[in-house]
């Protein structure tokens, strides 16, 4: 930073200070990522020392009374669950992406996109509730598991839920990279005599290979860090997933299972499990970085392939393969329709089970030990949103301003971008552990809305930065130049000219963040605690709707309340999704005028 100051020599005025502040805000993401890595590593050191690092990783004995901790079964569990889910979810997502880009009738495109967005917006705790209340009993009956000594929990049910959950993540990335394939590829293929299906499956999909791969890696990241949806479905035994219905645990579910009562070394072992997860996620982020290198949908790869092949040979194989591509076309239709049905089923299942129990007494009544109500959840959620936005908006907008208005493409900016992406890829359970270690314990906030709100601010920070930066970059340079020409300084230009134009991105990011906060549960359990009472201030505990669902589910005897809360949460999520669409539509219209 000294260097830049020297170059711009005379300024120690407002402009210089502002630049320093903005770059500091941008660098904040780097600090957060390192902070998270450091704290979780620090907290897992005791178990590495006492048990031994290699014994911790390669032993399969987990006995809390004997203080033996080995996470090998958990690692195997996480890997099996993740790879199966990404395999299934990835294939489904690929078909859906292809279908949405090439086969979807025009009038259906927007609604279907909404549907996939909704699938992404459903809180993971609701997926968990659905799996636990529908899939587990359904499997028990369907496969007659009771006689075989199983419960319906295990690899199969958790894989199914997880595959559904990661479809939107993979599909949206794959869709974008399919859209980016130059249209002359398609036209060229048609001109060579391909049918539409042949062109799509033999030319366009291979060209989007890199993007699809990136989507898969994102999906792996999402799947390996998923906690709340699978924690009731895996069965929770300390064992290898040696069969489809054998109860097992993963790196994340063991944390939820044991953290509530863990003693000192046990807590450290759970942190160690979180640390291993974090290492996985960091490796995935590196892989993602590598795939992003070849930025435009891998077209150099495709050209090389054309040159290598004998054209006539290739043509003939296209023709002969025609029927195969037609089958793929039919499959993609089937999968797209099935996915719509699955979503409708989940939504209806929750609503049908929840709405009858949703009365005004339960929503607005006073919450006591006699019957807990949801009114504290309204207040806690609002307080958490307020706090998280109050922290994340200035930080995020400042960082976005730096990245878009000040930064030149140097190593500092590259690093910052990498770290923002990394932050976005860290699973919420890790944020939860970090919040527990840093805000709850080190800062001595206790389980409180403050601790929860700050943790949430870190979670939504990447969304705010990206969304703001995106809309800042869409502001035409001519506006900035006009402002300078009228004599305005850089700072004035940013705040008076550029930011108002970028309002759409900021508002979208606010609503997306609210959606994220409303559906968050894993990070909040360890930071904001859980309580049935109305919060009395930012220092008291508070449960959001998602945490309330978890609470009701864990108590087991309050399933009706869990459904009712889930139904209400579902309405909120639909409302938030509608808001995002509305705002995007509004600003698009304004831009056209």
């Amino acid at each position, binding site marked *: 930073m000294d260097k830049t100051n020297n170059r711009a020599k005379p300024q120690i005025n407002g402009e210089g200070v502002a630049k320093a502040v903005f770059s500091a805000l941008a660098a904040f993401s780097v600090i957060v990522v390192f902070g998270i890595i450091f704290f979780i590593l620090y907290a897992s050191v005791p178990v590495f020392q006492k048990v031994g690092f290699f014994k911790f990783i390669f032993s399969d004995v987990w006995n*809390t*009374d*004997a203080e033996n901790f080995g996470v090998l079964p958990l690692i195997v569990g996480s890997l099996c669950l993740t790879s199966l889910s990404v395999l299934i979810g990835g294939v489904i997502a690929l078909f859906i992406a292809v279908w949405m880009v090439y086969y979807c009738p025009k009038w259906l495109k927007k609604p279907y996109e909404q549907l996939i967005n909704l699938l992404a917006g459903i809180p993971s705790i609701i997926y968990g509730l659905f799996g*636990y209340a529908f899939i587990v009993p359904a499997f*028990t009956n369907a496969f007659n*598991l*009771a*006689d*075989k*000594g*199983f*419960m*319906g*929990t295990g690899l199969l049910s958790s894989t199914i839920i997880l595959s559904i959950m990661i479809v939107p993540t993979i599909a949206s990335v794959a869709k974008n990279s399919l859209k980016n394939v130059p249209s002359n590829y398609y036209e060229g293929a048609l001109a060579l005599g391909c049918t539409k299906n042949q062109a799509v499956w033999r030319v366009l999909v291979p060209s989007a290979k890199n993007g699809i791969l990136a989507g898969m890696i994102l999906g792996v990241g999402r799947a390996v860090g998923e906690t709340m949806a699978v924690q*009731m479905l895996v*069965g*929770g*035994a*300390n*064992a290898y997933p040696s069969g489809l219905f054998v*109860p*097992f645990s993963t790196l994340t579910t063991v944390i939820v*299972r*044991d953290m*509530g*009562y863990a*003693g000192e070394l046990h807590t450290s072992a759970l942190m160690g499990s979180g640390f291993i997860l974090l290492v996985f996620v960091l490796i995935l982020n590196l892989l993602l970085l590598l795939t992003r290198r070849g930025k435009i949908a891998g077209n150099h790869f495709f050209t090389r392939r054309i040159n290598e092949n004998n054209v006539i040979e290739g043509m003939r194989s296209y023709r002969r393969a025609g029927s195969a591509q037609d089958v793929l076309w039919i499959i993609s239709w089937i999968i797209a329709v099935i996915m719509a049905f699955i979503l409708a089923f989940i939504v209806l299942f929750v609503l049908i089970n929840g709405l009858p129990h949703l009365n005004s007494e339960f929503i607005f009544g006073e919450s*006591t*030990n*006699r019957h807990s109500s949801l009114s504290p959840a*309204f*207040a*806690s959620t*609002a*307080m*958490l*949103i*307020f*706090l998280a*936005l109050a922290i994340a908006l200035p930080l995020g907008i400042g960082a976005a301003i730096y990245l878009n208005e000040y930064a030149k493409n140097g190593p500092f900016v590259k690093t910052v971008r990498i770290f923002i992406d990394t932050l976005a890829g860290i699973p919420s359970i890790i944020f939860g552990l970090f919040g527990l270690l840093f805000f709850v314990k080190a800062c001595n906030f206790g389980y409180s809305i403050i601790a929860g709100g700050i943790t949430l601010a870190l979670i939504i920070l990447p969304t705010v930065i990206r969304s703001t930066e995106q809309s800042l970059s869409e502001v035409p340079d001519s506006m900035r130049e006009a402002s300078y020409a009228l004599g305005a300084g850089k700072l004035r230009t940013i705040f008076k000219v550029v930011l108002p134009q970028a309002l759409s991105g900021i*508002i979208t990011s*606010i*609503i997306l963040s609210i959606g994220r906060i409303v559906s968050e549960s894993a990070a909040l359990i360890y930071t904001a605690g859980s309580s*049935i*009472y*109305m*919060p*009395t*201030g*930012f220092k008291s505990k508070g449960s959001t709707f998602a945490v309330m669902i978890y609470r009701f589910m*864990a*108590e*087991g*005897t*309050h399933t009706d309340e869990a459904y009712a809360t889930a139904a209400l949460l579902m309405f909120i999520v639909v409302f938030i999704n509608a808001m995002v669409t*509305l*705002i995007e539509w*509004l600003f698009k*219209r*304004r831009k056209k005028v």
Partner: protein
Amino acid sequence: MKRRILTFVICLAIGIVSMGAFAGCAKDEVTVITLSGSTSMTDLMEALAAEYEDAHPEVRIEVNQGGSSVGISDTKAGLNDFGLASKAVPEADGVKGVQLCLDGIALAVNKNCAVNEVTNDEVFDLYMNRTPIQNTITTAIIREGSSGTREGFNEKIKDADGKDIKSEYSNSYGTAGWNEQSSTGSVIALLQSNTAAVGYISLGSLLANTSTLKALKFKAYGADEYVEATTQNVLNGSYQLQRPFTIVLSTTHELSPAAQGFYDYIMSEEAQAIITKEGCVSTYGQNK
């Protein structure tokens, strides 16, 4: 038009946010009593708390779950007003236990399960060696390591030489790989959907769910007859799967006045009706 919608959206956003800010200023003249520990005791304590709160609107009682060992460790660390443990707590390390009442540990199965009575050996073989009980019950559901119910169960179930699971097998079921649940409620939920599984839960919780679950008659190690899991049999000692519900107090700190008030209430004669109603076994007049 679009401007109006935009204004509406912004107003809404500001509304939500300021609601959050103001919600922070809600009433705060109430005193909070925090209890934590055994999940088996949650229902009982919530019922007692509800009754007490009716008479004392200035008091709020928070019952946090976690398991019996959390109840003890939280009390040691001063994180609660008093702890809850579903096992006997000897006086040590700055805490002491006072018995609130007795509770049976029911071997709960689905109401449609064909099995009605089990012996100690059958239960031991199922839990440790996966040997089905009467070729019908093939699965067991266990609780997490901090559970007082798990400890109580493991103390009472013995192998052929009369050695119990807790002391002889370090409180664990070896490599049997059972479904592990961290609350009484989630065990109940699983049992409701499976007719070939057994789980150990508090008798009080079982009695609250008799429409879907039933308790097995149990023949203890060395005993000669099957005994039904009822509160009378717990009280007269013939049903051996039982343990005390214990209030964990710190020996170094006095209870706060509010907590003392609630403590006095739950130990009073007045509270016994609720204890009995919740399916627990009142021992009023025998302890203290």
